[in-house]
């Protein structure tokens, strides 16, 4: 007997993450070398860990207010003003969430009504499409292309807009492509957002990993700022993935509606983690610089090496992923990754796990030590010698 008929049919038909499947295969094997992880390889800086420990020692382990500690909301607003030149009010415009993940869920459920369309540039982080569907929305995929450096072009965006469009999801720098949007790039799509009265949900979790130029937040455009919902968090910038602290920045009306879902489902983000986040946001700019430099160096290294061994790879301008085409092998993304895992014990993530537009690509994370990257390149070179 199964319960498939009885459960929520929307959930039933949501595809399980392609990454999960891959993880299951990799876990059964021994001595796997992996470039498959979507989190930084630094241990959280000690002063931040120490702040979490201190909070526990002092008994700061009660619930906080739903929106999170005011000191943390203030810190987040100061940070957005300091680093991205955007003003928000800590009382009205901020909710501290359980990672960026909860923020994505809360924001999408707050905005989407059944039948609404949400434009999703793909390849995209795996959670967006699933959560849009869970919220009753319809995913309208816009393929991002390598020739456009995986940017959202105004032409592609405009074509996807209909009178049922509720929102567009922007994730720049992006997982899995490492693509970014500059101020000029955004300037071309802002009028489309304004004309059509749609919301821009911008997941800026990789903002601090923008190479060669400063990150531009679409919230910097005053003419649409009320329609922009910023999602961000502490995971990538301060290497705090396991703390689960993120946040939403938005117009006060949206924040107060989001807060209804947040208060009934979550109550508040983990209290000691919030204290750690206060330390990070107020005193962690130096940590960001150190990690940034190290990621940029490894990006340079891996792009050069991948091109040397014959995988055409463009130099991504953000995040800690490269997204090379595997067209030269004639294999599908999944075949490529399965054979690679089987024959070389190397785990990468197939591009199609991030949407159909990712077919023909693989995601490689360089959040690994140089030794690990070297070993993986050797394995990949060995593999390519047979499949090219």
């Amino acid at each position, binding site marked *: 007997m199964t319960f498939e008929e009885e459960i929520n049919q929307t959930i039933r038909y949501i595809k399980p*993450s392609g*990454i999960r499947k891959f*993880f299951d295969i990799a876990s059964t094997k021994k001595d796997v070398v*992996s470039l498959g992880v979507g989190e930084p*390889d630094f*241990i959280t800086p000690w002063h931040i860990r120490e702040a979490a420990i201190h909070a526990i020692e002092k008994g700061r382990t009660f619930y906080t207010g739903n929106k999170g500690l005011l000191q943390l909301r203030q810190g987040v607003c100061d940070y957005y003003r300091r680093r991205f030149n955007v003003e928000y009010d800590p009382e009205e415009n901020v909710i501290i969430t359980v990672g960026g993940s909860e923020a994505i869920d809360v924001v999408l459920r707050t905005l989407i009504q059944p039948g609404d369309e949400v434009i999703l540039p793909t390849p995209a982080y*795996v959670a967006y499409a699933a959560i849009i569907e869970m919220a009753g929305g319809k995913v309208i995929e816009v393929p991002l292309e390598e020739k456009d450096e995986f940017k959202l072009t105004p032409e592609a965006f405009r074509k996807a807009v209909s009178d049922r469009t509720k929102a567009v999801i922007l994730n720049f720098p992006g997982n899995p492509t490492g693509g970014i949007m500059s101020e000029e790039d955004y300037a071309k799509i802002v009028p489309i957002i304004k004309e059509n009265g749609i919301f821009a949900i911008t997941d800026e979790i990789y903002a601090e990993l923008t190479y060669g130029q400063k990150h531009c937040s679409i919230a910097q455009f005053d003419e649409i700022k009320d329609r922009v919902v910023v999602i961000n968090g502490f995971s990538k910038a301060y290497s705090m993935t396991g703390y689960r602290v993120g946040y939403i920045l938005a117009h006060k009306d949206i924040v107060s509606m989001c807060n209804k879902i947040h208060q009934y489902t979550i109550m508040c983000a983990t209290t000691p983690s919030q204290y750690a986040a206060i330390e990070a946001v107020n005193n962690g700019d130096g940590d960001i610089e150190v990690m940034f430099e190290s990621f940029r160096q490894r990006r*340079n290294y891996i792009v050069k090496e991948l091109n040397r061994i014959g995988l055409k790879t463009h130099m991504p301008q953000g995040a800690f992923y490269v997204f090379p085409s595997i067209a030269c092998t004639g294999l599908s993304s999944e075949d490529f990754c399965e054979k690679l895992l089987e024959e070389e014990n190397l*785990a990468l993530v197939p591009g199609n796990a991030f949407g159909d537009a990712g077919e023909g690509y693989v995601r490689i994370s360089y959040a690994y030590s140089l030794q690990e990257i070297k070993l993986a390149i050797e394995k990949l070179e060995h593999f390519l010698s047979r499949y090219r």
Partner: protein
Amino acid sequence: MKELLNLIEKDARYETKDLAALLNEEEGQIDEQLRQLEKDHVIAGYHTIINWEKADQEITKAIIFVNCVPEREAGYDKIARKIAKYPEVETLYLISGKAEFMLQVNGRTMREVSSFVAHKLAPTEGVNGTETMFILKEYKISGVDLDDTREDGERLLVTP
């Protein structure tokens, strides 16, 4: 240049071709920069950080504060250079506070270090007094935590 120095300060064993790839430069450029930095003594030397206790070797280290009077014209430099010449002196700093110099001295045994202080350091012209503190245990050297029992968290093999 600062980025190159930052890299090799942490690990002197990078190969030139890796440094070139990391910094997005040509190998020849890196070679040339390293040669120049060595020539200018910006790179003053290359060392290996060794946990001697693990190597089962007898070694005694001490921190020594030295009081002295500066010399007219030469200030502290002349006496510092004199002290620095002793091979037993591992590091030497001019410091603020109650002493003028702080040294780290390495020897095989306590007797050897004591003998250095009594017979070489203290009688040096200009030295007024010394205070010797023997190092009992090393926890961190040149930015490297020697604790090999610590367990860092493990990441999953594949995550979104």
